[in-house]
């Protein structure tokens, strides 16, 4: 295949589907009870140096409680898929958890502004950065989910984003057109927050899927955090609603309000005041350390974090806001 042009960004993960297949071959297919507490799940399945991908969309259906736990346990030298990462990245940057990142959308919290902490960490030079776009990372996950080493896409061409990516441009043997080939991305570990899952990991969610179905399939290991556990009978009663099948899942953790302070569709809206507090306090690194101690390091779990930020009253407010009451 004639490569016409290629990015000189680093390809952090092996796109070889045969290597991934050897891993998946050994993965257990039995419907075992995979319920465990989040601390145990992170201890067991999230390792220093692993490449991590977070489900949802920045601060929407995002496994925030798992991000806190990763920081609390002090994971380091991870790779990270900066795929529409906003508040999740802000937390992981606070813990300096990663040292290499595939960037699609980082640093910002969309309309809310930029995270000083994330920015400074990326500007420090301590992080290896490869550039992509959102759909490029989606396509890379799709390629991995399909068990092929790449998928062609018609973006990135002509830009510096391509030059700093690890994509390659080659011509199409059917049409002669140039195509950008996106190498498969098999993350070591994915964490995805859902509305409902059974004890085996069959999971369902409502609202937009973002890239979570391909992400769940592409990742070597998957932790599901769920608002609620439901019975397996409920899953089998309506198998059309299952979005993630049990056999890709390694751990199921029941984490009500697990996306707080982000939005969980049909459940609760984001806590904009608290997100603003994050962005504000980051500007002063001493204050920020006190804030992190209070909100992450000194919290034994997500429930304690929420109770330190308004507890049941806040939960009711955010639920009302989500419902447009």
């Amino acid at each position: 295949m004639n490569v016409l042009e290629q990015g000189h960004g680093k390809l952090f993960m092996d796109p070889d589907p045969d290597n991934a297949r050897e891993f998946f071959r050994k993965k257990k297919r039995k419907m075992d009870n995979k319920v465990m507490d989040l601390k145990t799940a992170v201890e067991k399945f999230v390792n220093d140096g692993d490449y991590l991908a977070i489900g949802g969309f920045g601060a929407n259906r995002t496994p925030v409680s798992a991000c806190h736990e990763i920081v609390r346990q002090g994971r380091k030298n991870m790779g990270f898929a900066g795929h529409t990462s906003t508040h999740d990245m802000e937390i992981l940057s606070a813990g300096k958890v990663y040292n290499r990142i595939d960037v699609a959308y980082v640093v910002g919290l969309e309309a809310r502004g930029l995270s000083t902490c994330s920015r400074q960490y990326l500007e420090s030079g301590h992080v290896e950065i490869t550039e992509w776009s959102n759909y490029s990372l989606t396509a890379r996950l799709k390629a991995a989910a399909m068990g092929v080493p790449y998928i062609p896409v018609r973006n990135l061409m002509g830009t510096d984003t391509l030059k700093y990516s690890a994509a390659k441009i080659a011509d199409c043997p059917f049409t002669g057109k140039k195509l950008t080939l996106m190498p498969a991305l098999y993350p070591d570990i994915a964490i995805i927050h859902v509305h409902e899952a059974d004890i085996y990991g069959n999971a369902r969610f409502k609202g937009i899927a973002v890239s979570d179905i391909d992400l769940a399939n592409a990742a070597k290991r998957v932790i599901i955090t769920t608002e609620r556990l439901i019975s397996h009978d409920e899953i089998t009663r309506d198998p059309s609603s299952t979005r993630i099948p049990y056999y890709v899942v390694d751990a199921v953790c029941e984490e009500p309000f697990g996306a707080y302070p982000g939005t969980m569709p049909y459940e609760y809206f984001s806590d904009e005041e608290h997100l603003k507090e994050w962005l504000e306090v980051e500007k002063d690194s001493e204050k920020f350390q006190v804030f992190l101690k209070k909100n992450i390091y000194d919290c034994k779990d997500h429930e304690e974090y929420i109770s330190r930020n308004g507890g049941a009253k806040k939960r009711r407010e955010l639920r009302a806001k989500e419902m447009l009451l």
Partner: protein
Amino acid sequence: MTEYSAIEMMICVAARELENGSTVGVGTGAPCAAAMLAQKTTAKDLSILFEAGGISPQLPEMPISVGDSRTFYKAAMAGSMGDTMEACSRGFVDYTFLGGAQIDKYGNLNSTIIGKEHRHPKVRLPGSGGANDFASFCWRTMIMTVQDKRRFVEKLDFMTTPGWINGDDSREKSGLPLNTGPYKIITNLALMDFEPKSKRMRVISIHPGYTFNDVQDNCGFELLCAETAEKTHPPSMGELKILREEVDPYRYVIGR
């Protein structure tokens, strides 16, 4: 001793090959009966995937189509063809069960045409369906078929679905996913595997009442025979009871 038919024998032998806690991509008919029997005997935690999208159903009866509503009855997931085939392609599916109108000594299968001219065949058959996909992607291909010289041929009229292709390392060189390929052949006469180096079909167990000569006489190419070739255990009373009463009470498959 219990009476049993050739197809019952094949289904029981096939069921025993399926490891507990594994995954299998199957079609309708005998392969599905074998998977269902395995679930009710030695492989309770066997997970069945259908190419049309049914994933881990609790089959209430034999499906008549790999896409009918039984194939996702009380399933873990009613997905898509992409969901099933992507799982296979990623390496999540351990076994598949296939058949064909012709098979050669390397376990390659023909389900496309009988005759030499593609545009004017003697008989047009269904084509690959999902067979080429399953045989390309799943770790171990198992083949269930009645054995005779018209079916077990020296040269296929058309190679629809890959086995070991031309033997030796030709499958690996073809570009198909590594470490995949035909694993066992289950016929009405014997159980066969493939000699590891040449990849030629080899008898490893002969069904009760038959000799190696019977097996060879019903085969259009030269078979190898393992030194350790044994006599196949006949279906047990327990296997037959479950097969006849629970798996296929209406004799859709075993009544053929």
